[in-house]
Every structure is written in C-alpha cells, then in structure tokens.
C-alpha cells in the first residue's frame, strides 16, 4: 500500500518561502495606501489569498472591511478603497462605474488598484477611456506562484488555457517567464532545459531574455533543481480528457478541488454541515491514498480503520498512569487520524454512489475502446445515446472530443449528426461552442481535402515570402492533426499485458488509467529525460506537429550536485491533471527522481470543456 519514497529520493526545495514573499509584497502594497481602507477582492483571488494571508494580517495593515468584486453597487463608506483584481476588462469597468458615481456625487476618495499577477495595457486603456486614469493609482502584486503542496506550484490562472489555446493571445507568457525567473533566483538556475510546444518555446525564450538582462548576482548560485521541462497542454489533450481513477483525480472530478482544498458536503461528512478540507501531504491519510488507483483505496481505508480500532482498544487494559500517557501523547494524533479517516471513507462512499448511478463502468469501457481504437462505431453510438438522453452536456462534449482526437477528426456524417443532436438536446447556442472546439482543434471533422492548405495558399498569394512563412507558422500552430494513433503506437501508450494488470502493484504509469493507457504527456517527459535530449524522437516530434518547438538547452554546470540532477521541474502550460501528477510521482519513485510540478492551473476534462463552452452554465 501507498508507495514509500525511495531512501535516496532527493530533498525538495522549501517552497513556503514563496508564500512569505507573496505576503510580504502584499503588505508592502497595502501600506502604500496608509490609513484605514476597504478592500475589494476579486472572487478568483480569494482562495489563493486565503492560502497566504488571513483577515488579521489584513486588519493589521488597516484594512477595514472586505468586499467581493461583483456586479453590485458598493456600500462602502470608507475614504480609501483598494481593489485587488485580476487584470480583466470587466473589473476595470466595475471600478470605473464606482469612481464615476463618486465623482458625480461630488465625493472624493482615494482609490488604488492592485493587479495580480500583473497589469495589462488593455486595462489601463479602459481606465483612460473611462476618464479615471490618474484618479486611481495602479500597482502590481506579482503573486504568480502558489505552493499548493510540497511538490506542486500553481499559478492559479485557469484562463490561460482559453486565452492561449483558443484565442491565441500570448498575454501570459511574460507571467510564466517572470515566475521561472523568480524560481531561478531563489533556487538557482536550471542547468538542463527541455520543452515542447509553441508556448513552451516562447516562454522559455522570454525567460532567457529576462535572465540575460538581469545582473548576474545569482549566476554563481548552486542550482537546486537540475532539470526543467516545459510542455504545452495541446501536446496532449487526450490525457486531460479521460475520466480519472486515481483517488486525488477522482476527488477532483467528483467534488472539484479548488486551490488545494475541497468542500465536502453533508453526504460526505455525515452531518448537516459542509466541511472545507485542505488536501495535501500534511493530511497523513490522504497522502497515502492520493496516488492510488481507486480500487485499492477501500482496502487501505479498512485496514487503517482496523488499526485505529486496535490502538483505541489498547486503553482497556491500562492502569491510571498508562492512561494518562495515552491521553496526553497519543490521543490527539489518533483523533486527528480518526477524523481524516472518516472523511475519506465518506468521500469514497459518495464517489461510489455517484459513479454507480452514472454507469461509470460502461463509460470507462467506451473510453478505453476509444484509446485503443477499436469498436469505433459502438463508441459513437454510445456517445449518441448519451446526448439523446440529455446526460450532462459537458460529459457528452468530452466524449466527442476524445473520439475526435483519437480518430483525427470525426467522419463528416457522424460530425453532422452528433452536432445536430447535441444542439437539440442542450440548446442551439452551443453552435458557438462547436466553433470554439473546432478552432482549438479539439473537435474537428475529417476533411476530404486539406482545407487548411487552401486557406494558407490563398493568403500566401497576397504576401511576400517572408510573411508567408510566418503565416504558415501561425496556421500550423492552431488547428492541426492530432495523429494520436500513430503517436500511441510509436510510444507504446497502450501497454500489452499478459494476464491481469495488477493495480495494487503498478508496473508502469498506465496504472493511473486502470492499466489501459500511459499518459502521453508523461511518456514524452520520461523519454526525453532518459535520453537527456530529443534524439531518436524525431518522428514523434513530427507527429506532434512540433518540429520547430521541441528544444533542449544544456549548460555545463560543474557545481550541479547529483542530488539536484534528480530533481525535475515540469511546467504545464495550460493546466495539468492530478492523474498526470500521480503518474510522474510514480515514475519518480521508479527512477529515483523527484518531480516538482508547476502548472498554470489544475485542470480536468470538465474544466477544459467549460473553458470552451460559450454558454455559461
């Protein structure tokens, strides 16, 4: 049960420093507006803020009342207002309305906008247009790395995915580069760099530029992290679209883990109240089951329950002195464990109930068939029925995308019929969702001729050769063939197993998908780390449409210790799933590495689909 770390596993750097840094910066910013002030916080920033500060810290720095930024008039009567927001246009409009209403009422107050993690020129433009530029002062709170766990850093930017992979907006590359710069400043530069994907390459280049510009005070620093690997989410949509079956992933799919914590409702807590629970390595029970296939979790929990019972039972034969010791030394720990145990048992029960109800078994079967590429007709029918019965719109969409990517697009007849039925079942406005999915390459139609080339050549005629080359770049980076089947074959993503796949003793990363599929993203990382380069992977890179965007960059570093060479920072641009994290943790244990994850946000299939949906649920 629960894989222990290898004794030779390298130590992880201490990331709590990042929290302190972020908090100190915030305090500094708050003090830039001396005196009492009301603080307006954007909803999406509340949870991350909760992780690094609390109300009393804010109060110490003269924050009076706290408000949520929402579409309601503010009732604040304070003379100083401070806004803590993401750089979004709608926030600017909100602030502008507020300030302009004050002006109209002849009221003067002080306003300060703190953008996190950075401000955008488009926001300043809106402030200017609304006539309040100069009335408000702007600052940036570069809080872009939140340690959610000992080995997991999140930028908490779920919008990265839509902004870049749908809209092609590169606004977050600088944020990523700044985050990498901060890490290299604190923990030493990374001697070995690898990456794949257009955004990975751009962020990397921008980061290097940053490093060159800065004075080299840190250059002599001994690197703590030996490797960095950057990966674009669109290298592997398949993994992110699969149902998760390791415990942490399943909890995320079922209850939504938000900023490292989850709301367990009454059905889990078996009481009348909900409970917000932090899920990380400090939860001893959770830590032992988080990476386990769900089928192992029951056995583990019952074993634990029995042990606990035995430990409590020990008190029966105790005399007074022993009892005193027991109560003062062990009881607290036991009680804590007891609480956690009953929570996770409750969660398991609730997951079981939900999954049984939605016929999870059949769903998984369909997913596996899609991954392996057999019985396509049957799977298509299954999806159709899903749609007809108005089962969750997100789920139906996800299955269609999975079918499309594994099959290089749907055959036109199926595409049309599924789309029509989808619009009939879930609403005609989803026409817009389909258009988005097509643009992002998530749900496409197999074209008889290559329409992409047609557009390309049409545009190329208009321009010079140099520009035409650029256009080709731009086009090929968007909608492209997924080639999943060929890649899967090349990289052996579907394990050939004789006999049963023992999920209790996983033999490879495929265990995170019941032994049916090795996550593509993790396989790429494994292969490159093994070779310390892309050598021999040319064909894979070509199939990934990434010939120009796969890179390696090694600096000769004598000072790199062998321990740090086994520490690998993996950067997921566009989000990573808990299944991928579990798979790489497993790989780390096998090979004696340790992975550190940096992601723009934790994601899963539902979040990906919601990001593409035009109609907000």
């Amino acid at each position: 049960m629960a894989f222990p770390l290898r004794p030779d596993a390298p130590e992880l750097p201490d990331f709590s420093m990042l929290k302190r840094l972020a908090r100190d910066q915030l305090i500094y910013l708050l003090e830039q507006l001396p005196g009492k002030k009301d603080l307006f916080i954007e909803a999406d920033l509340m949870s991350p803020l909760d992780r690094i500060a609390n109300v009393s810290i804010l109060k110490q720095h003269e924050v009076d009342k706290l408000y949520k930024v929402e579409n309601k008039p503010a009732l604040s009567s304070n003379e100083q207002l401070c806004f803590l927001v993401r750089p979004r246009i709608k926030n600017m409009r909100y602030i502008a309305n507020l300030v302009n209403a004050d002006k109209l009422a002849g009221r003067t107050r002080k306003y300060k906008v703190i953008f996190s993690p950075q401000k955008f020129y488009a926001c300043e433009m809106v402030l200017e247009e609304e006539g309040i530029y100069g009335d408000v002062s702007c600052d940036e709170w570069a809080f872009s790395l939140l340690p959610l766990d000992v080995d997991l850093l999140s930028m908490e930017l779920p919008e990265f995915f839509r902004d870049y992979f749908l809209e092609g907006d590169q606004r977050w590359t600088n944020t990523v580069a700044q985050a990498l710069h901060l890490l290299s400043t604190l923990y030493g530069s990374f001697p070995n760099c690898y990456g794949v994907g257009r955004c990975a390459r751009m962020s990397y280049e921008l980061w290097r530029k940053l490093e060159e510009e800065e004075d080299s005070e840190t250059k002599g620093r001994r690197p703590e992290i030996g490797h960095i690997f950057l990966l674009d989410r669109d290298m592997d949509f398949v993994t992110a679209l699969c149902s998760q079956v390791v415990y942490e992933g399943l909890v995320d799919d079922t209850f939504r883990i938000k900023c490292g914590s989850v709301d367990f409702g009454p059905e889990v807590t078996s009481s009348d109240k909900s409970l917000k629970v932090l899920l990380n390595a400090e939860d001893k029970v959770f830590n032992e089951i988080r990476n386990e296939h769900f089928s192992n979790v029951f056995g583990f929990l019952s074993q634990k329950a029995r042990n606990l019972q035995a430990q409590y039972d020990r008190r029966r034969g105790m005399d007074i002195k022993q009892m005193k010791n027991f109560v003062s030394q062990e009881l607290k720990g036991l009680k804590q464990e007891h609480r956690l145990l009953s929570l996770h048992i409750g969660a398991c029960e609730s997951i079981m109930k939900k999954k049984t109800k939605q016929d999870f078994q059949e769903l998984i079967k369909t997913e596996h068939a899609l991954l392996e590429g057999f019985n396509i007709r049957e799977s298509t029918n299954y999806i159709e029925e899903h749609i007809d019965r108005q089962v969750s719109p997100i789920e139906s969409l996800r299955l269609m995308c999975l079918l499309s990517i594994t099959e290089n697009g749907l055959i036109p007849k199926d595409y049309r019929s599924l789309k029509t039925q989808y619009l009939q079942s879930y609403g005609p406005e989803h026409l817009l969702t389909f258009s988005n999915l097509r643009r992002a390459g998530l749900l496409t139609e197999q074209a008889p001729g290559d329409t992409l080339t047609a557009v390309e050549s049409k545009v190329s005629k208009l321009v010079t050769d140099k520009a035409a080359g650029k256009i080709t770049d731009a086009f090929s980076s968007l909608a492209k063939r997924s080639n999943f089947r060929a890649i899967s074959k090349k990289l052996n993503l579907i394990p050939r197993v004789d006999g049963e796949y023992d999920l209790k003793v996983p033999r490879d990363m495929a265990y995170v998908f019941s032994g049916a599929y090795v996550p593509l993203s993790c396989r790429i990382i494994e292969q490159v780390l093994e070779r310390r380069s892309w050598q021999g992977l040319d064909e894979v890179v070509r199939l990934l449409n990434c010939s120009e965007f796969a890179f390696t960059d090694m600096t000769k570093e004598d000072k790199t210790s062998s321990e740090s060479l086994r520490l690998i920072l993996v950067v997921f641009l566009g989000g990573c799933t808990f299944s991928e994290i579990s798979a790489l943790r497993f790989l780390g244990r096998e090979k004696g590495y340790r992975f550190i994850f940096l992601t723009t946000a934790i994601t899963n299939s539902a979040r990906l689909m919601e990001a593409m949906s035009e109609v907000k649920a």
Partner: protein
Amino acid sequence: MNRTKGDEEEYWNSSKFKAFTFDDEDDELSQLKESKRAVNSLRDFVDDDDDEDLERVSWSGEPVGSISWSIKETAGNSGSSHEGREQLKNRNSFSYAQLPKPTSTYSLSSFFRGRTRPGSFQSLSDALSDTPAKSYAPELGRPKGEYRDYSNEWSPSDTVRRLRKGKVCSLERFRSLQDKLQLLEEAVSMHDGNVITAVLIFLKRTLSKEILFRELEVRQIALRHFIHFLKEIGDQKLLLDLFKFLDRTEELALSHYREHLNIQDPEKRKEFLKTCIGLPFSAEDSAHIQDHYTLLERQIIIEANDRHLESAGQTEIFRKHPRKASILNMPLVTTLFYSCFYHYMEAEGTFSSPINLKKTFKIPDKQYVLTALAARAKLRAWHDVDALFTTKNWLGYTKKRAPIGFHRVVEILHKNSAPVQILQEYVNLVEDVDTKLNLATKFKCHDVVIDTCRDLKDRQQLLAYRSKVDKGSAEEEKIDTILSSSQIRWKN
C-alpha cells in the same frame, strides 16, 4: 452487475487487462461500509470534548477567519456595528491556513534595496539604466514620474523591452508606417502578448481602419491578438468590419449571432435571431439558426398559451402538475418533453403537439421515442407507454418494437418507478438472454428470472436465486416446484 457478462468478458479478454469494476457493490462497498461502521463506533470515545483541533467552520462551510468567510460576513451585515466586528475578530481562529511565522529571512527590505528611499532623488543614470536589481520584487514605491521617458530616442526594440517591464513609455514618436510596423514586429518577436496588444492599441488609434486591417492580415499573430482585444473590450462594430475585410464570413456570422446571448427579452431575442437567418453561415449551420428561430417562435406561443391555461385553473394537467419553469429558451428536446407531458393528445395541427414538433424539426424516431417514453412514464401513463411500442402489421396482429432497445426502455421505466408488472412485461421483451437476466435480477422481476433460468436449464443459478427471494413467498414456492420437476433436463 447490470451489463451483459458475455460482452464484458469478451472485452476484457480482448484487451488483456482487467479494470476495477465500480458496480461490484457486494464486495467493495460492503467492505467500505464495514470500515465506516468501525470508525463511527469510535465516535463515542472520541467526541467527548469539543473539536479543538478541527477548524472552525461557519454555516456556509468556510473556515471562520478565512478571507472568503469574512467577505460573506461583510456582505451579510454590511453597515453593521463595530462591536459585531470586534467580536468576530476575537472569534477568529486561524488554525486553517497555518501560516509560518512572518519572521522571514527574506524580509521586504532585502528585496527593495536602494529602491525605496523615500523622497530621495535617483540619479538620472540610475533611472535610465535598464538593469533593475531584481525584477521579482515589484517596482514599488517609486513615483511614476521617474519612469517617464528621458529620451525620445528609444529604438523599437528598447521601447518594446520597456513596455514589457510595465514602464510608461510614449509611442507617439513612431509616426511613419514603417516605424509603426517595425514596432509591431519587435513586439511579436518578443512573444509577450501584453506588449503586442499595447502596440495594437496604439496602431488602432493612429492608423486608419483600412491600413491597419491590411497590415494585420499578413501578421497572423498580431491579428489574433487584435481580434481577442476587440472581443474583450466589446468593440463589436470594428470586429465585424475586420471579419468583413478579411472575408472571414463564417466568423462574421457567428460573431453577430453571439450577441443574442445578451438579449433577455424573448420577443426581442426572436427578432434578433430573425436577422441572423440570412447571414453567411455554413449550409449546415444555416439550418441550425433557422431552427433556433423557429423554436423560440414556438416557445413564445406555447408559453403565452400555457401560462393562460395554468392561471385559469381549468385544465387538469396544469392543476395536478404545475409548471416548474417557463419553456422559453429551453433546448428542443426539453421542449419536446414538455409537449409530451402537457400536450400529448393534441392534434398534429397545433403548435404544441409533439407530432408537430417532431415533423417541424425532423426529430429522429429514436430521440422522439426516448423523450415521449420519459414524459409518459413520469406521468405513469402506462397505457401511452404501451401504445408507443405497439405496431400493427397488415394482418392486424400487434407486435412490440422499440427503436432504442428494450433494455433502455426498462431502465427508463424503472427510473420512473414503474410497478413490477409493467417492468416485467418489458424485461421479457429484451432479446439478449444475459441482459434480460441481469435486468430482471436488478429490478427484482422474480418471475422473469425464474422462467429464464428454467428455460436455460440452469439449476445452479436457480438455486442461488432461491436464497435471494423471501422465505415462504410465492416465488420460493415456484422455484421449489420447478426444481423438483422431473420434466426438466438440467444442464448442471
């Protein structure tokens, strides 16, 4: 155990790995329940004192003292007295975040060295040098004036670099088209989308629409940023002009169509959709748009009519089953369900009749049957359910047919808590024997299970089933009779 065994085995054999089965309730769940009992039995011992090591959680589940919690408090009693807040302050227990002590070796001052001297003038060279000490510490505390350009001679690449650092930087001196385009190229080659947008804002202001569009057309990365920028600031007019210029007719149409989401009033929305019908969508989408318009048109009529009927209180179905929500803007399938529920018997000529909907929107048979079945079963109108699957051949014989497969029919009926007699009838119509047996067992259709076992001559299974029926029941008796029958040649 609701899937056919055969299917499953074939699948697992063919793919050579065994997945964990979620519906294996017998085993896993009971194991789980057992552990739960064990843990719960410990409660008596554990719950003696208060949960001091548990976090305090307010009614909404937010830990007391967390920021999210506090905001809800403000919202709840905004304008409340100070005392209340004082109390809150005292109640705050911060076991939640468990923050490390702020005694950090990375104190603020060490990050802002030399930068925060209040009121001190920095030398010109200092201000001009592009090598800040640390960029991870925000450049705070310096009056904005210090960022101002000291020179008008920044090259395009310097300018772009300054923009990336968030410094105020005038672009006004880039007046020739060539300079402007060079600036844009520099921004694109640096990869920072924020800077690309900054330059685009400048270009939008200082170039005519036609020139700007022409130049963007050959610069796809910049173009994408511009389109996203226009979407975000909501400059729909310019966006449509741009699509028109680029001859991206489909995007133009979709972008126009998107606006309907912002129109709440159903009549106005309908009128707006009408303007979408002629737009250059793909042939396929044109049909969807037309359908969208027709659907809303119908819904408006149905809604007005039914609201009237409901409030008049004369119609039985509305009295017995008051409408939960308006039908406006619902998907077609939901509308069909609604019409099967409230208007099932209506003649084809009325707008609200299910048959009319089916014809107008070319709803496939399968979808129609599925929806009608769900609606009639919900009303427990078993007779209608029966009629749905009964077909007569030319000789007048009746036969049961279901385009969706009888196993689905059974599931839907069960979901709507149909009585066993009804279920039984449809379980019997399931063709595949294993599926039939599974369903019958799952839904406790004893007769079907018993008869099927008998027909299969499966004595072992029948014996096993005997233990599942009630002692002394008619089913048990029936099983015993069959088991003792000498007519059957059991296969096991």
